């Protein structure tokens, strides 16, 4: 398939008080149109940095981002972001939050009526039309995230970037939103990059799972192709041997190859040895 988004040899250094800190080293990834890619890795491995670079919120120290063969710099609505904590403007209603984005992107191409229909259509996609006139503090966390997704979709982005979109939600709400996202993805065929901590979420939603090594100088460790037929059903997949195998592969990567914390048993053992030494002394 032709490359839609090309993350080309991206490195990122942050200046700190103790000299520069290299967060990312030579990250390269080609993503096809309509592909759903998850980035997974431990905290601090630079997943968010990759996403922020693609979004244009950070400027890569080396390398760059190509969208349909053209380099992109700076943020823009064609790479819409769904932020982790919804980031809705608290003084605007759900409708107005989406409207702000729609007015900005389509003010020259759509009439007022068309814009209104488009806003309602996107709220409809995430099942939020009933709360169109409610402000963020009047709706639940899951609903806020839905509106956040509607706002991003309304920009008609060529790439949808999601930074742990369901991380702050309870398990049931999360499952519900994942199902909604799969449905929307089926209809719109968006290109999506999603950051997640959740192995099940990654396997369930993605076409490819990009596993990142631990920082500093984090880079892509392994890439897992997920060949599960869509539409996917979480209940049916729970006992599916392929699904279980994919899940095991990601877990192995995270907890064996890129182990961040020592298993508790090992840590305990060490402690006992130290204590024994102290007791002997």
């Amino acid at each position: 398939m032709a490359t839609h988004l090309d993350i080309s040899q991206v490195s990122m250094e942050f200046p700190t008080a103790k000299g520069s800190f290299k967060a990312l080293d030579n990250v390269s990834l080609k993503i096809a149109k309509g592909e759903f890619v998850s980035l997974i890795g431990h905290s601090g491995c630079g997943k968010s940095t990759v996403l922020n670079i693609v979004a244009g919120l950070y400027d890569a120290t080396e390398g760059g981002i190509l969208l349909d063969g053209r380099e992109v710099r700076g943020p823009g609505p064609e790479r819409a972001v769904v932020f982790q904590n919804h980031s809705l403007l608290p003084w605007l209603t759900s409708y107005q939050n989406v409207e702000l984005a729609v007015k900005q992107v389509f003010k020259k191409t759509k009439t007022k009526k068309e814009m209104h229909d488009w806003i309602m259509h996107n709220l409809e996609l995430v099942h939020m039309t009933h709360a169109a006139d409610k402000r963020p503090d009047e709706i639940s966390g899951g609903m806020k995230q839905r509106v956040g997704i509607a706002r991003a979709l309304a920009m008609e982005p060529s790439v949808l970037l999601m930074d742990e979109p369901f991380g702050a939600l309870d398990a049931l709400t999360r499952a519900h939103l994942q199902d909604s996202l799969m449905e929307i993805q089926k209809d719109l065929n968006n290109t999506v990059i999603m950051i997640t901590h959740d192995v099940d979420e990654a396997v369930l939603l993605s076409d490819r799972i990009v596993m990142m090594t631990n920082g500093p100088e984090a880079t892509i460790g392994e890439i897992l192709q997920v060949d599960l037929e869509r539409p996917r059903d979480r209940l049916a997949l729970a006992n599916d041997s392929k699904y279980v195998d994919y899940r095991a592969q990601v877990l192995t990567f995270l907890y064996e190859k890129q182990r961040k914390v020592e298993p508790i048993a090992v840590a305990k053992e060490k402690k006992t040895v130290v204590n024994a030494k102290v007791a002997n002394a």
Partner: protein
Amino acid sequence: MNIPSLSIASLKDRVENFSFKALLFPIFGILVFVLLWQVGASRVHTSLGEFPGPTVVYEQWNSLVTEHHNERVKEDKFYQRQEKRIEARQAKDPNYVGKLRDYTGKPTFFDQIFTSLYTVLAGFGLASLIAIPLGILIGLNSSVYSALNPIIQVFKPVSPLAWLPLVTMVVSASYVSEDPMFSKSFLTSMFTVTLCCMWPTLINTAVGVAAVEKDLLNVSKVLRLGWITHVIKIVIPSAIPLMFTGLRLSLGIAWMVLIAAEMLAQNPGLGKFVWDEFQNGSSNSLGRIMVAVLMIGFIGFLLDRAMLVIQRFVSWDKTQVLR
């Protein structure tokens, strides 16, 4: 917006939910204060007689109200006399164009309250017009902030009494007109109020603007909002709570400064009233000054409440407890 509506139903609701307890303690506090005041006042002797207690203050209040009423009656008669005279002359000579002369009687206590109010609002309004845009600019740009911060910090603590002579001289020198729209004393008082009260609004607006959540700034960047849309849609709404904190502080300062400024600038407001009574030195003076003191306090309280009402109306965060 959820503005507390004043419909009959809600009014009825309020009356029903009205608890006597909520009023009990404030009333008790006031009663104890008045009692201590009465007892204490009778023990303080000055060259102008006893320090005014509540009863004296009440008498003086009544006499000020009567004076105001009498003055209005006199004024009406004055204009009626003039009109009659003009009509009489026009009856003889149809070409005669009469000229109504303004009444020149002395302003009463209530006229002076009115003068003080519009002077303070003019000064505060001007200060807000300067401080809010400047605050936004400072908050948005850290270079402008570093450039202006030392100046702000130095001018902020300056007393109105120090500014006043300078303002007086500048106003006298620059506002020269045959038929002045404003009196010089008004302008002097107003500018002094402006100079002293703009700082809290300026600083709080700047802090509020600088403290816009980073996520919201990212939203603005992703949407590629233009500068003006960015300021109107993101920056100002998020700075509104702090902006109002500043505005309320400013209005409080403005009202305090005004009384001092009016004393020295001889603007015919409450400050001048106090000063004139002090210079007058009659046996009524202290009681009248005390009436003014209470009135100044009460108006200051009402001004703050008015700002609170506006803040409730404008604020998007209805969960925020405003007091």
